[in-house]
């Protein structure tokens, strides 16, 4: 299971990196979002993948699932969601003001 997750996370990260390196702003934002999902899966995997154990300390069962990574992911998802929303709004606004979403043209030069 961990191997499968590792491969999935790897694919997500490489996809995200590819998208971030493109010129179009929308693709870049999608890329950051995909990297964010990869990170969330990574946290989940790093906490240890188990089936069948309740997330409780002191229960009768010998095996229990660590609930902390899931709490961390919940927070990370919310933050990622908020930042992506803000980023998209800003991209729309800057497209309307600057009339371009091409990062090459957003470089910015000294004499303007």
């Amino acid at each position, binding site marked *: 299971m961990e191997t499968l997750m590792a491969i999935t996370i790897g694919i997500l990260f490489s996809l995200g990196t590819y998208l971030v390196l493109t010129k179009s702003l929308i693709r870049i934002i999608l890329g950051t979002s995909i990297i964010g999902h990869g990170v969330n899966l990574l946290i989940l995997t790093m906490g240890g993948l188990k089936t069948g154990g309740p997330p409780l300390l002191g229960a009768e069962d010998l095996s229990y699932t660590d609930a902390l990574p899931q709490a961390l992911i919940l927070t990370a998802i919310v933050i990622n969601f908020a930042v992506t929303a803000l980023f998209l709004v*800003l991209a729309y606004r800057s497209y309307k003001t600057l009339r371009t979403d091409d990062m090459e043209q957003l470089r910015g030069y000294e004499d303007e």
Partner: protein
Amino acid sequence: MNNALILLIIIPLITGMVLIIFRKKIVFQRVASAAALLVTSIISLILIYQVKTKGIQSLQLGGWEAPFGISFVVDMFSALLLLTTSLVAFACLVYAFRSIGTEREANYFYPLYLFLITGVYGSFLTGDLFNLFVCFEVMLISSYVLLSLGGTKIQLRESIKYILINVLSSSLFLVGIAYLYAVVGTLNMAHLSARIAEVGQDGVTTTVSLLFIIVFGLKAALFLFYWLPGSYSAPPTAIGAIFAALLTKVGIYALFRTFTLIFYHEPQITHLLLGIMGVATMVLGAFGAIAFSDIKRILTYNVIISVGLIIAGLASYSLIGITGSINYLVHDMIIKALLFLIGGTIIGLTGTDKLGEVTGLIRTHPYLGWMFFIAALSVSGIPPLSGFLGKVFITKGTFEAGYYWLGGVGLMTSLMVLYSVMKIFMNAFWGETNLSQEMEKGTTKGLMFPIVLLTMLTVLLGVGAEAMQPYVKMAADDLMNPLHYIHAVLGGNSIQ
């Protein structure tokens, strides 16, 4: 247990939330946000006193004992930074009253400003690595909006880049947290420190620590600073000043915390790398400061140089080097805000930030000119002023650790800093007065108070350095002895 710690988060947060409702009542917004910052200054003073008399203070939120709950911890290092943050934030806020413009004021400038300060306080207070991430995000999201508030072309363009680089570094931060959790099995900083000290810092842990160097290096503008000059010169003066004074410093604080408390067992790898990055930062920053000839660029490159110098003290990992870094960190927060405020005032008066277009301002604005002169001397570390002591201790620390190249480059770049700020002083203030008072684009009315306040602080910090040293010494002592921190947080808790 000390409930005063949480007040520093609650007061600016609640005030900011309430101010969202009173959007149109600008006078009320001003008074309330200034009052909130004054109250937090008083609380941080009380905290300094408590830490001095009773040792490191901690608060376990919700009564969940560390390492299970979220701990807030304040030692002398964070207490000093908290007080400096409150004072600098107050000065920049007062500057914003007259300079930020009604449109921004009516569009939630004050709530956002308070949320930014909340994030900074939270980062200084927290004793949990994941909570540090959350506080970073609180601070960063407010800074995204503050940077783009107003929506001019240059602001939009720069904030896109700023957000992108910070979103990526936040993702890497989470990756680092995930790895560390897998290796050590905890995220409470004191618990992390205890566990790593117990089993030793092996190769995997050191590799994870390198990831943290990249993450915090991006936030602190340590070597990975290429996003900084553009984004710090885009927003209005008051916002640029608070960014320059606080945001990179939070990254520096995180580096200090992690590399003195958690990953301090392999200084020949991690701290040496920090030293190399510090040298590169100082050299490249100095080139930038000398090469450009507009005020904002020169000042933003000065921010970068000082980051390199502060990290040089950490890289030496000696008591005296850390003492110097703390001295310099406090000085730098004040002086960078001061330089940005004066630089912004000059640009506001003349309507241009190109050097050489306007000369002889000293005739029409003598006080502004001489205060810039004091700030320029202070930033380059001339003796009676506040930058001197920190620089001496940092240099001494690097020499003690045998990193002569590190201290040498630090001294060399001081000269370049002096040259770059003197360039502004001589070009803008000396020479023929070619701008009469009637032709000025702006006014200094109401802007002088915060500038005078910060100038007085830097002079006081220099002249009264002797009185401050016991506190700085205590802060450095606690940083060099992680056991103090661990005992204060975990206490008698036997859970390992």
